[in-house]
């Protein structure tokens, strides 16, 4: 049985890197007494899969980790309760879904959404240029990469009341987050960035 566990990583726990999170999950599962499955081989590890790694020091509100269990008798509520009892401060498990087979990461995760909270002064400028921003962003990425075969990554920016919402469509890697951040930082000041979700099946404009 495979579990898809949704979790959030907030406060000081945001300083845990993805590498640290692997250790944190392994120890949390073992402390919670979950019957996890180990990989074959000399140094067996807990069978786990992750959503795309969030950038360092960014809070995560709705991320996912996939883990295989030996036993399908444990109830979902009990799993959540146990995990939250034994988890590290700042890492909170919010939901669990069970699958008989290992789900493909790409089937579950459609896009990654970041929210950049900007300081008040920049709000007026950005609000009037949403479309221009999107166009400009695509153009810049395209120019930066410098050759035709590489298509610009799909990305959409929206301005909310308190910040800029960024959707990265199926391009989850760190550089694309960095590219967006660097681009926005060139004309806006931010207080903080939060990764809002990774699991949403996004319909245009529905996620606010």
């Amino acid at each position: 049985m495979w579990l898809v566990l949704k979790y959030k990583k907030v406060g000081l726990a945001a300083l845990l890197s993805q590498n640290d999170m692997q250790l944190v999950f392994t120890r949390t599962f073992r402390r919670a007494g979950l019957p996890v499955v180990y990989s074959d081989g000399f140094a067996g590890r807990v069978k786990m899969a992750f959503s795309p790694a969030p950038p360092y020091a960014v809070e995560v509100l709705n991320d996912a980790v996939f883990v295989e269990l030996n036993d399908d008798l444990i109830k979902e509520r009990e799993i959540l309760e146990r995990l939250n009892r034994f988890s590290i401060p700042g890492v909170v498990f919010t939901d669990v879904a069970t699958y008989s087979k290992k789900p493909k990461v790409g089937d579950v995760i459609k896009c990654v959404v970041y929210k950049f909270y900007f300081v008040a002064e920049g709000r007026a400028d950005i609000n009037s240029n949403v479309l221009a921003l999107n166009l400009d962003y695509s153009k810049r990425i395209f120019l930066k990469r410098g050759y035709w075969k590489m298509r610009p990554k799909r990305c959409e920016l929206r301005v909310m009341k308190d910040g800029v919402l960024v959707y990265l469509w199926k391009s989850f890697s760190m550089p694309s987050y960095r590219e967006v951040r660097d681009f926005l930082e060139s004309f806006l000041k931010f207080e903080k960035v939060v990764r809002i979700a990774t699991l949403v099946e996004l319909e245009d404009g529905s996620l606010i």
Partner: protein
Amino acid sequence: MAKFDFDTLKSLENPLYHIPIEWGVSCKENCNVRVTLLYCGDYPVGMSYHGFKIFYPLFDSIDGVCVSRAYLPSFNDYKILKNIYDLEYSRAIKDSDLLVVTYQTELNFIGLATALKLAGLELQVEKREGPLVLVGGPASVNPALSLVMADAVFVGEGEKLLAMLLEEAVEKVQRFTKGSVYKDKREIFLELLEKEPYCHHVLINPKHKSFAAQNLPVRKALVDYTEYVPTQFVVPSCQVVQDRLTVEINRACTRGCRFCLASFYYRPYRALEPERVIEVVKKGIANTGYEEVGLLSLSASDYPWIEELINLLEKELPEGTKYSFPSLRVDTLYRIAKMKPEKMKKGGLTVAVEAGSERLRRVVNKMINLDDLMPQLEYFFKAGWKHVKLYFMIGLPTETEDDIGELISYVNELVQRFGKKNVIVNISTFVPKPFTPFEKEKFYGIEYAIDTLRRLKRELRGISLRWSDPTLSALEALLSRVDFDLASALAEFFYSRGSYYAFEGKGIRRESFALEEFLVSYSADVEKIFNGSKSHWHDFINLGVSPAFLEKERQKAYSGEYTIDCRERCLGCGPICGWYSSIKK
């Protein structure tokens, strides 16, 4: 909750070394006594130190005591933080009431000097305000070294007495807050330490109190360590050195290698029964979530119930958990390998040969037969082990060119059999330590070590050869037997320069030159120390192993006589076993 803001933390090299994002951390709101366990090294190394794993839950269980841990930040992190803070409360260590420091090696002396400087504490005890600095650990047995910066030195095993001290301190502080005569908590601790039973085991700095008033030498404190085996641990959320559950299966080693301080410091031999080990392992795994268990010991091969323990571990350990013995001799490993243990971690093959020739092995009392070793190694290579690591020492007493020649020919023989890539040779320089039979031996010096290493490099070309820096060995040799005057001067030097970072990092050459220049005016003292003509430590500390026994062992070394394991027959090394029996009663 950490008081650092998020941006500051983000800019650190690794913020997890400074905040309590860990399991098993205790943060109390109300406390009477604040104790900080200070490790004079960085977090990944300090987290693997077993002593603080024992003390942390023990002190935490005392009402009114807030216990925290502190480590030396990296140089870049210090530039941002500007102080040393503990992890639990993000409180500057200057604001603690008691700093418990361990000297695992003499080089921790440099770490403490740097830590005091960074924390804004005075070096001189008489000028210092703030926490009482209590030093312990095997390298603190030279009082000249440990009393320079410490208010007091605890000799031996502190599990019972330190907990008692804290309980009494809490009681006094509670009375003190209701209007007592004490100026500060430092004074409370000092007053307690001057009383029984502490005064028998704690060396108090004479700047606080005259030596005439304290009965010297102070005696090593002993406990039945099996009563203090921890099952609750602080578990880090990032990778550290030795990242595993550690269970001390036995304490002390009775082989009696004549160069080894641990062998004489940790006596008498005690062991935890296999059933108890299993109980501790099970609780520990449930509490920590660790995937590996390290069965700590100075010499796991001497654990009397090793086969029984392995059978139990194979049966009882949960799935996905491995266990390892960090110090298994090849002959024992050979015996165990035939039991085909499945959950045992297949570590590297390590053989501490120490000396290349049979003659020199007799001198150091290292009973190892190289002829028996060869077929055992062949068995392991056939069974899938990839390489063998050999440990040798250079500069041992009575060492000659011929001994080094024998070392080279033995390694070459191994290389011919198993291949160049499969043999790794580690060389360290012998450092004479107090309270060992070699305490009065000469340190051969940096030049000798460098020349010998050059010869080894030349004649063992193509073999993976690793060595410890002779400069650091020389520094260790100087500090291990240093006298009071030079120790003060060195403490000033390290304090003013914050030398820890230079010796840990790339500045080691520059710092060594500076130290060499500084020592020019002390060259006569340095020579005396290197020649081993001073042994003042016996006047201050009694570890329970008599100086007469050490001298007898030294004479046996010169005549090339082996000394048997003292569990076979009592060798009359001193009163240590008698002290322990009286405690057990």
